[in-house]
């Protein structure tokens, strides 16, 4: 009986080490991963214009313009940044959505079709 308990204990420990070693066992306290999303802005589209994520995901949105300066505003939130013109850098935005649909739009007048320039982040549980 004692031998059986000892064998089982060793087996459990070895299994745990193997699982940890392969990275399958993720400690609850490990830092939350950041999902990077790249969005290109060009008169008069954001690409991609529909982004689906799991609610609560920490998003790092990297925005780059392919032509003039644009804005990126997530309606109903504090997120409202200006994207520099082509070749002048990338703007990053951190956003952690709860469940819901978040419309984003260009917030800097960029041309005749400016009002078409919209997209959505869909966060689901």
């Amino acid at each position, binding site marked *: 009986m004692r031998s059986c308990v000892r064998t089982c204990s060793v087996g459990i420990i070895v299994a745990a080490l193997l699982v940890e070693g392969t990275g399958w066992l993720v400690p609850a306290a490990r830092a939350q991963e950041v999902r990077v999303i790249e969005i290109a802005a060009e*008169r008069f589209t954001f690409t991609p214009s529909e982004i689906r994520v799991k609610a609560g995901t920490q998003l790092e949105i990297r925005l780059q313009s392919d*032509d*003039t300066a644009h804005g990126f505003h997530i309606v109903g939130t504090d997120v409202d*940044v200006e994207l520099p013109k082509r070749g002048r*850098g990338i*703007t*990053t935005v951190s956003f952690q959505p709860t469940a819901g649909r978040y419309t984003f739009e260009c*917030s800097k007048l960029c041309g*005749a079709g400016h*009002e078409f320039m919209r997209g959505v982040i869909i966060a689901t549980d």
Partner: protein
Amino acid sequence: MLTSSTVENYLKAIYGGAARLEPGHRLLPMGQLASAVGVAPGTATTMVKALAESGLVEYEPYSGVALTAAGQKLAALVLRRHRLIELFLVRVMGYSWDEVHEEAEHLEHVVTDRLIERIDAMLGRPETDPHGDPIPNAEGLVKTQEGQTLLSCPLATVVTVTRIIDQDKEFLRFIEQHQLKPGESIEVEARDAAAGSVRLRGKNDQRITIGTRAASKLLVQVAHVLLLFLLATPALAQSTRRAEPARTNLSGYMDFHFNKPEFQDGSLDFHRFVLLVTHSFSDRIRFVGELELEHAFVEGLEEAGELELEQAYVDFLFTRSFNVRAGMILMPIGIINERHEPPTYYGVERPFLDTVIVPSTWFEAGAGIHGEVGRGWRYRAFVAAPLNAAAFSAEEGVREGRQKGAEANAGRPAVTGRIEYVAYRGLTLGASAWSGKSGFEFRPRFDVPVSLVETDARYSRRGLELRGQFAQVWIDNAGLLNDALALRVGVNPNIGSALRGFSLESGYRVIANTARGEVGVFTRYENFDTQYRMPAGYVPLLQLDRDAWIVGATYWPDPDVAVKVDYSIVRSQSAVVRAPNSFNVGLGWWF
């Protein structure tokens, strides 16, 4: 008996420590407090118990300490004294900002409320001290400060330094030496996580590289947000979490040309001066207006320029997939009609296809819906005033039939729509259609049904730009139309029953992303015929069956400014009537 300054220092330390706690944590651990005030943990615990008995703090053994409302107010008032003294010493006494903290540490406990009130009034009720720290008001309330560090603010965006959160003397001298004090405008150009450095562009384009630790101690705000913050009333600034976008915006584009057709004198033409204005009644109701002056000069009935209201509509934005638009609207046909800012296309003049087959800029009074569904599928569908067939011609097709919203006949409105698919970054596929009855001006009335289909593709990525477009127009009852116009003006206009054109274009930015700008070269082939099909009994004019090669280059000193040059070779099927080639130079810009 506790001395007043000791109590105040403890309260201030708890206040400052609590502000740095992780979200969701309320109690400051005793070890941190002891370290902040520079005493042994046991001494700190004894003091905290005494403060708890006075009702200034809540103490939970083995957990930590938090200020009560009374303690919070007392601590804030100490900070008020400290920060006003610092500002006074800098502004009035001529101290440097790295030596005032220690003076204020002593003086904050001895000055009277009356003196502080006088200092506050004398300095004009300031909101921040020399380091950008907020000054609590006389009630102990602190205005919330929004801000990001240099590690989290947007790259390549002008930001204003608002606060330095480390008051170590050496650090403050470093900040001053590099002109990074509150109020300075800077840009973060790059962050290198591996090297732990942040590269900044400061005053006079000076490049400064600082460590990430230092970068985390500078709070900044995006410049325009700060401006709104300063312009807002204090109540508004306190209550709103995000800066509201400006409610009215002005923008525009211009197009200035030199054209030299073969065998003719050259001409200088300020072709377009366009102003756009938008106004947000709310987040969901917006106005867009576009007023265009063509050829610079308008006088009476003379043949000169045109003043046109190309857009003036209100958008009711309901959801991403369904929105309503009404007013003067652009017909959603082709590439150029909705996307015609000069820096966005190659060539001095717009393509022939977008002039004689698709009559851009094509705008009409109307209303409809638009939106986007799924990933990249967009639609627009409008009803609008139809074309007026009485103004059609053989050479320019339906172009002069645009009613342009000027008391436009809308007895039988036209319908138009476009579907667009942004397949992936840079690739847009589109198809458009228009259909309307255009014979409303004739008596007895007869139908001139007109329909147009168009399809296009555009790819723009890594400097490569490819475009293809096809359009065809059908004019039913063109024979009747020719007869009716011949009776009216005495000459048969010989209008075709179908118009057709297509174009292919490739361009490439051979010099890209340099400090001095970018250069692109292009070539375009166009084939267009405004008499592609003729009504029975009519013969087409061969000179209207044309094709053209356009080659040229564009220099963008800025992505919104384009200097263009091209040569246009036009050929027709006629051996007698020759279309002139032309050399063109243009300057166009958007702002």
